[in-house]
């Protein structure tokens, strides 16, 4: 049998279902791969070997008993360390939760387990998902499998790196300003930010609650769709969860086509700061869409110009409030409780020791933006920008079916290059942020390698809210056409580790 770690999730599920391979064999192959390469990549913060093998064994037993298995049963997955996992450490990449063992599963975790998906472990991330490079993890950076000296994107860099290094065929990420799509773009993988409210946030550690959205990561569009279907759907435990049927993303992924579609190119997503090799691959993608039968038109979304500024007021404001729960009283780190200090002093000492620089910056920025005297000028204006961005999308989607853009202005940058320049780091999310502000759905998928550095470039597809299936219909058509041109999936060009 071929190397199990090179197969897609759909192929692995089929192998488990027809008995060609057991889930234990599949899981052992991936655990061996983790053992072999993760010392170099550092995609995982915690590998749950015992738990994974127990889950795999249970799937094999169910199959042996003649039970009908779900479409991803027995397939391994890497879970971002922002989702609670009962009995398995959850750190959110922060020292303030080091050693914390959650007493309950997130809804996403529970759904994965119920679907027979095997959770290999928890992946590295920027602390509290704040970052675009995974360098803000308190547990050290993750390397990009295409070039270990470069960032794998962030905040979900552990998830994207685990896919690109064949340690897992599936991963879960969360996207507040691009943390699924940007890591996918810079690692040559596929990542989807579902419509806000499409995937439950219960048990997902909160960063910016009106923007945070969990979603699927994979190496192929179909695998992402299969995973999307498993984790999406209404959850009474999340009051912002959408109580409506999930769009049929799997059927869309199996029936890729852009024939007769109107596709908009966002005029504002190019120009200064965009790497020439990224723009070139994007322009070729647009040409490809035309060849495949789509009508491509240019659309203008003038308010996107203010989206980055609005985001860096709204997200810090919400995080300054959400992170108030880390007060050293009920769980997590506690520093300086020597009997002489007050609770307030212990809280301040603990937060100082437990939070890293980016988290402190954002908590203070949010505290500033929400303080009286500044509230209207900053937070109030940012909320108005949010309305304007949504109106731009509405106007665009009245004319076109989906929008396309580069996912990121540049390919993966070197580790350390932007580490102490917050504004340079924030610009990595230029093209992804408007989607979070409006709450609609978007995908990033590979569209080739940049000429100047040979690193992956991502194509972003944006759909209206609750039209997530369009992402898969378009993505699947683009993926098939590119693979026919390249002769293989681009991920096969990733250097051996």
């Amino acid at each position, binding site marked *: 049998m071929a190397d199990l770690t090179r197969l897609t999730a759909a192929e692995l599920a089929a192998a488990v279902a027809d008995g060609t391979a057991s889930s234990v064999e599949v899981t052992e192959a991936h655990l061996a791969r983790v053992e072999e390469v993760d010392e170099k990549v550092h995609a995982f913060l915690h590998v749950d070997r015992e738990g994974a093998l127990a889950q795999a064994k249970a799937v094999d037993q169910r199959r042996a008993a003649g039970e009908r298995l779900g479409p991803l049963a027995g397939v391994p997955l890497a879970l971002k360390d922002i989702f609670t996992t009962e009995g398995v450490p959850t750190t959110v990449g922060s020292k303030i939760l080091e050693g914390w*063992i*959650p*007493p309950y599963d997130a809804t996403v975790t529970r759904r994965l387990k119920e679907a027979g998906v095997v959770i290999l472990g928890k992946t590295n991330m920027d602390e509290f998902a704040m970052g675009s490079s995974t360098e803000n993890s308190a547990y050290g950076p993750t390397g990009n499998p295409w070039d270990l000296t470069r960032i794998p994107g962030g905040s979900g860099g552990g998830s994207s790196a685990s896919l690109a290094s064949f340690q897992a065929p599936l991963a879960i990420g969360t996207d507040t300003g691009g943390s699924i799509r940007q890591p996918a773009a810079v690692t040559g993988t596929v990542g989807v930010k579902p419509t*806000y*409210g499409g995937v439950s946030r219960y048990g997902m550690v909160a960063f910016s609650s*009106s923007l945070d959205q969990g979603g699927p990561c994979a190496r192929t569009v179909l695998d992402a769709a299969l995973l999307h279907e498993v984790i999406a759907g209404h959850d*009474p435990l999340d*009051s*912002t969860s*959408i109580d409506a049927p999930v769009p049929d993303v799997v059927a869309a992924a199996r029936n890729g086509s852009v024939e007769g579609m109107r596709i908009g190119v966002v005029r504002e997503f190019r120009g200064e700061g965009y790497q020439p090799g990224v723009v070139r691959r994007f322009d070729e993608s647009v040409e490809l869409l035309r060849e495949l039968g789509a009508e491509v038109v240019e659309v203008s979304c003038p308010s996107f110009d*203010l989206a980055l*500024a609005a985001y860096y007021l709204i997200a810090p404001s919400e995080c300054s409030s959400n992170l108030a729960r880390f*007060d*050293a*009283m*009920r*769980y*997590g*780190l*506690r520093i300086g*409780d020597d*009997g002489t*200090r*007050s*609770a*307030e*002093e*212990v*809280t*301040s*000492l603990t*937060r*100082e020791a437990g939070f890293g*620089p980016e988290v*402190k*910056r954002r*908590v*203070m*920025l949010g*505290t*500033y933006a929400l*303080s009286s005297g500044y509230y*209207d*000028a*900053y937070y109030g*204006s*940012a*909320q*108005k*920008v*949010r*309305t*304007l961005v*949504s109106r731009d999308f509405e106007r665009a989607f009245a004319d076109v079916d989906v929008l396309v853009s580069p996912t990121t202005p540049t390919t993966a940058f070197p580790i350390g290059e932007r580490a102490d320049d*917050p*504004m340079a780091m924030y610009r990595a999310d230029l093209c992804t942020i408007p989607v979070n*502000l*409006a*709450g609609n759905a978007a995908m990033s998928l590979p569209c080739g390698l940049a000429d100047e550095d040979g690193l992956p470039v991502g194509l972003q597809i944006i759909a209206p*809210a609750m039209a997530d299936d369009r992402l898969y219909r378009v993505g699947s058509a683009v993926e098939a056409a590119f693979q026919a041109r390249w002769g293989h999936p681009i991920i096969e060009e990733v250097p051996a580790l």
Partner: protein
Amino acid sequence: MPGITREEVAHLARLARLELSAEELDHFAGQLDDIIGAVARVSDVAAQDVPPTSHPLPLTNVMRPDEVRQGLTPAQALAGAPAQEQQRFKVPQILGEE
């Protein structure tokens, strides 16, 4: 809009319950000033008559049936506590001696 001073950063840190070091105050003051300078652009729309959006979904008062279901046991709820006593979270003093 005015820039942010080191004293203001110290005040913010106190409000945010962060016991920052003197070095951090120096470092963050410059960075926060840069970031606020960049994001202040949003005030371009301050005078426009546009309703604010706080959330992508227009939902209010979402309810679920008030059904009894299994919650955490006291032992589970206390398992992550930094300190506990008599099945309760034990915290440092919150009131003065007098």
